[in-house]
């Protein structure tokens, strides 16, 4: 099975280890993983800022680069959701492209969703030990129905105890450019999230989207918490990574 990794721009720049971890997990599940080298971004920042033309241009670019694979997997519900839930709308007036886009959308998955529902993994290579709490990122949760998948995967790790936080499904306040435009509000929401997460006493706050994780970690550190780990689910599941 040929799987293309959609690295996501945040993993590419900020946390390469997440992409390496994703590759490790996919290979563990028997996939042949390829990384199209010209990929950049799914276009969501443009789309959500109202720049439809740029969003369409980038969606076309993704289509051309990823169309030839059996599956496309992204370590992000946000980028996965962009392709699955929003790309088709961008081409509603272009039937020929729409058909191709719908094909691509149906073969595009968020990482944990793919590991559970397509690969049906029964083991993962990681060896994390400790308690974790899981933040449900909005796009994954509400666009792709990612809720049980990461928890099922965490349950495969014998050393991991999951302690749920209050309001796990509430937005952390990231919201892409929202975090810059409405910094104070965004920070407040991040602070609420940190409060709920820390109240569990977990060693690590885990999530499936780097945007949220950078936001949560950034607020946590500013609050003076240098100890709690903030980890992408792929890192936890894959164990020691080369990133």
């Amino acid at each position: 099975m040929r799987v293309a990794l959609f690295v996501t721009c945040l993993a590419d720049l900020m946390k390469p280890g997440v992409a390496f971890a994703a590759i490790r997990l996919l290979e563990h599940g028997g996939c042949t993983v390829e990384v199209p080298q010209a990929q950049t971004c799914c276009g969501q920042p443009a789309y959500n800022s109202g720049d439809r033309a740029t969003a369409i241009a980038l969606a076309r670019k993704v289509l051309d680069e990823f169309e030839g694979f059996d599956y496309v997997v992204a370590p992000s519900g946000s980028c996965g959701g962009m392709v699955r839930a929003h790309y088709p709308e961008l081409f509603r007036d272009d039937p020929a492209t729409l058909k191709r886009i719908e094909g691509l959308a149906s073969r595009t998955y968020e990482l944990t969703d793919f590991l559970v529902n397509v690969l049906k993994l029964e083991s993962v290579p990681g060896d994390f030990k400790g308690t974790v709490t899981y933040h449900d990122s909005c796009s994954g949760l509400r666009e792709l129905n990612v809720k049980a998948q990461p928890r099922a995967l965490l349950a495969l790790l014998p050393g991991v105890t999951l302690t749920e936080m209050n309001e796990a499904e509430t937005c952390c306040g990231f919201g892409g450019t929202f975090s810059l435009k409405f910094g104070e509000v965004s920070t407040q929401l991040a602070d609420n999230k940190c409060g709920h997460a820390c109240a569990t006493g977990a060693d690590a706050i885990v999530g499936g989207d780097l945007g949220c994780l950078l936001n949560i970690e950034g607020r946590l550190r500013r609050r003076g918490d240098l100890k709690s780990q903030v980890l992408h689910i792929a890192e936890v599941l894959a164990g020691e990574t080369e990133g």
Partner: protein
Amino acid sequence: MELRSNEFKARAAANLGNEKLQKGLGLIKVKAVVNRANAVAEFGDFETLREAGKEIRNRALADLDLYLERFEREATARGAVVHWAENASEACRIVVDIAKQNGVKTAAKSKSMVSEEVGLNDALIEAGIEPIETDLGEYILQINDAEPPSHIVMPVIHKTAEDVADLFHAKHGTPRKTDPAALTREAREILRPKFLSADMGVSGANFLIAETGSTLIVTNEGNGRLCTTLPRLHVAITGIEKVVATLEDVSTLLRLLPRSATGQAITNYVSLHTGPKRLEETDGPQQFHIVLVDNGRSKLLAGEMREMLRCIRCGACMNHCPVYQAVGGHAYGWVYPGPMGNILTPSYVGLENAVALPNAATMCNQCGVVCPVKIPLPDLMRKLREEQMVRGLKPWTERAGLALWGWAAQRPALYALGTRIAVRFMKWLGGSEKLIHRLPLASGWSDGRDFPAPAGRTFRELYKERRT
């Protein structure tokens, strides 16, 4: 109501630091969010009900003109008088004229957001008619120098019992008390005689029923009943989009509305008004006027915001909105706060007069999944953002930033080079702590958060190295 939506950012930031307000807002989660969740769970298949609600509202909007005509016919046949108001000032003029023609001195009002929207109280006062808000929340606001509501269902959610205690003590001159029941009793004692002496009752309407020509209101306090039955005149004012075809349709919507708003299976009162008092009846108003307000609605009907007209004003979207929960309703600067306001305000007052609102959301879609009539609120906000982009209503910094980034993201070689430089620079900024305390050009982030510094090389650099 004074429009202050362009001050959203500053007012939101100020409200974050307002401890008292935060205490009041905290109650929303306890009261509305938890109660709704329980009510939905108890109901069972709420999803099917939401779908039915959406269809009912869509059907009504698809033939809005026909249903409105039918409504007018049926209402008129039963003795009501239907008035059409194209805009806010016309709506006010109609109500004032009715009052003047009938020598009205005081008007008892039950809660109506459309009356807020058109500024009815000010118009009545100007014409020498005293409006008396009889909904407890609205009454509190009225005696507090006509403070605007901060929520469409719980207008004083921003106030604590302590605030109300101070206010009543100051305005009523009674001994200060904090027990909510005692405060309610005090308001009731003051309001009763006003009900009895009012010449005109003004209500809103949650729904208009085309087949019977009836208006319907849901309330929990019973003041709505008094306003609509005791005075000799009853004026119901509402938006033209509130019409539905049948009583059957309304019964479905009534299962959605209270559950979504407050988590109740049904409100304490559901009142249907069909014509004025008939000859053989002993109670009821002698005249029943229905003022149907357009004020921008028919324009929405024809455009991309059409789905917004399905709204049944339950408030669930704001109750569940993390931004609303943090900043409160006043920050939004007009009648309708929260996600629905992010769409309605710019639609009704002009996009240029509410530039921040469509952007004041994280797009988490918590609103969309609770909306009883399945309005895709984030999608509509995004469409307004697109319109802002086309009309040049976005700050040049945002446009320039986006343009540069978008241009580079379409040129992989250049993008690779740019990102390589950027991550190295960011690594350097992070220093030995690996935390950036101050992000150049992004103080919105770093005023309240650090930024975890990257490792200094992009994934694609590392990947290429390892695979060759």
